């Protein structure tokens, strides 16, 4: 699975997000991901993809595309 698909799968299975709503331009807050959910997601992504996102700063105003890009940059590091 691609990074994007991995993140989408986590959002659907762990946060109950509608898969149709997960698009690159959509702000995370529109997926009802608040600050707590983002920290929870960070842990899940780290475990799933074996990456370190400690210094990645994301807020719920950021988009799905920004999230995927940030994870990709760490996965390739």
């Amino acid at each position, binding site marked *: 699975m691609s990074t994007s698909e991995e993140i989408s799968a986590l959002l659907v299975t762990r946060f109950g997000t509608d898969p149709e709503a997960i698009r690159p331009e959509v702000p995370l807050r529109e997926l009802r991901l608040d600050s707590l959910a983002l920290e*929870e997601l960070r*842990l899940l992504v780290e475990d799933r993809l074996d990456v370190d996102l400690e210094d990645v700063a994301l807020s719920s105003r950021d988009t799905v595309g920004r999230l995927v890009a940030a994870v990709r940059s760490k996965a390739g590091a």
Partner: protein
Amino acid sequence: MTGRGPFARRPARPGIEPFSAAVTGIGLVTAAGVGAERTWHGVCGAGAGPSVPHLPELDGLPCDFMYTVDAPDMKAVLGVAAQRLMDRFSQLAVIAAREAVADAGLDPAVWDSGRVAVVIGSAHGGLPFYDEQHTVLTERGARRVSPKLAPLTVVNGAASSVAMDLGAHGPSQAVSTACSSGTVAIGTAHQMLRTGACDIVVAGGAESVRSRLLIASACQMRAVSTRRDDPRAACRPFDSHRDGFVVGEGAGLVVMERPEHARARGAVVRARVAGYGASSDAHSAVAPDPDGLGIERALRTALTDAGIDAADVGHVNAHGTSTVANDLIESVMLRRVLGDHLLVTSTKAMTGHTLGAAGGIETALTVLALQHQLVPPTANLDAPDPAVPVEVVSKEARHAVFDCAVKTSLGFGGHNAALVLTRA
């Protein structure tokens, strides 16, 4: 035995009029059954018997079993997004709350949500998640610990989850007085209705402590039964061979309303909460006052609050934990305060000791007892303790005529509570 029929109520105290809250809905999720009807049939001996399995997480402990709820798929029922923010005690509370509100005939889409309160008791809150995350901390380090620890483990998690699920915007709060939490929650709700703080309250208790940490400690305390060869027979309140309580999980909630509110909408009233009393032993961290003076004070206060004579009480759903000390002290106190005409029961042999949920579950069962004029039996009472000086119903449910019933609860730390309930 019969009750004395219609009774007159005195003013509670000079200047304080009696106040009866209408109980219009019930929700129960217990090891005896999911749903009020299933739990009622279960405690009356008509079900398949409670679920009391050995649990793998308790392997090797002197008590390796507990009463568990055969709950539905929580993700499906509650939704993934909501479920992930609730530990199990909150999930059980939401299921019970939905049933209670539907039973009351209330529709959260149209009610005056600012006048709806939630008061839910719990002794330990989200202890299982705490236990799990402590293991994560020690085995994988601080950076693997979940950020959800605080919101999931706080004792008010059940109250806030129910308020969110129902869209209740009135006051919401937790009550935590150990094993009397559920009873104190309903007493607190009674007081809130009396003062006009709200028109409707969803109140009771919720607990789930499937935690190796807590059960290990309870074993060290020697408070729990070690009858591992027969878990279903381990909890035996008022029996000569009782050797401790057995922990259970569950939730029991009632919908209570100001009487004029229930009347105006034509609600079916199941029973009424007529009086409440609470007290503190100020004696011990775990042991009840040896003479039962604390629970006596709570019960006498509840009777005074209700303006009802002891002789009018026909049935008591006792705390009846199946510990040697509690059952003796409580039963002697009941005889001293209420007399020898009572039909007493403990339903814990069918639900387990659900700790902070117990008072909520057992108050709901007392409401059903009043409605059906039927006293559930105390299961496993094969050899009644001759030192217990009250009549404890055993073997099968018993029909009786009674207009007034009592629920008593005692909590670690000496938190005593009693409710007086009357027929609708």
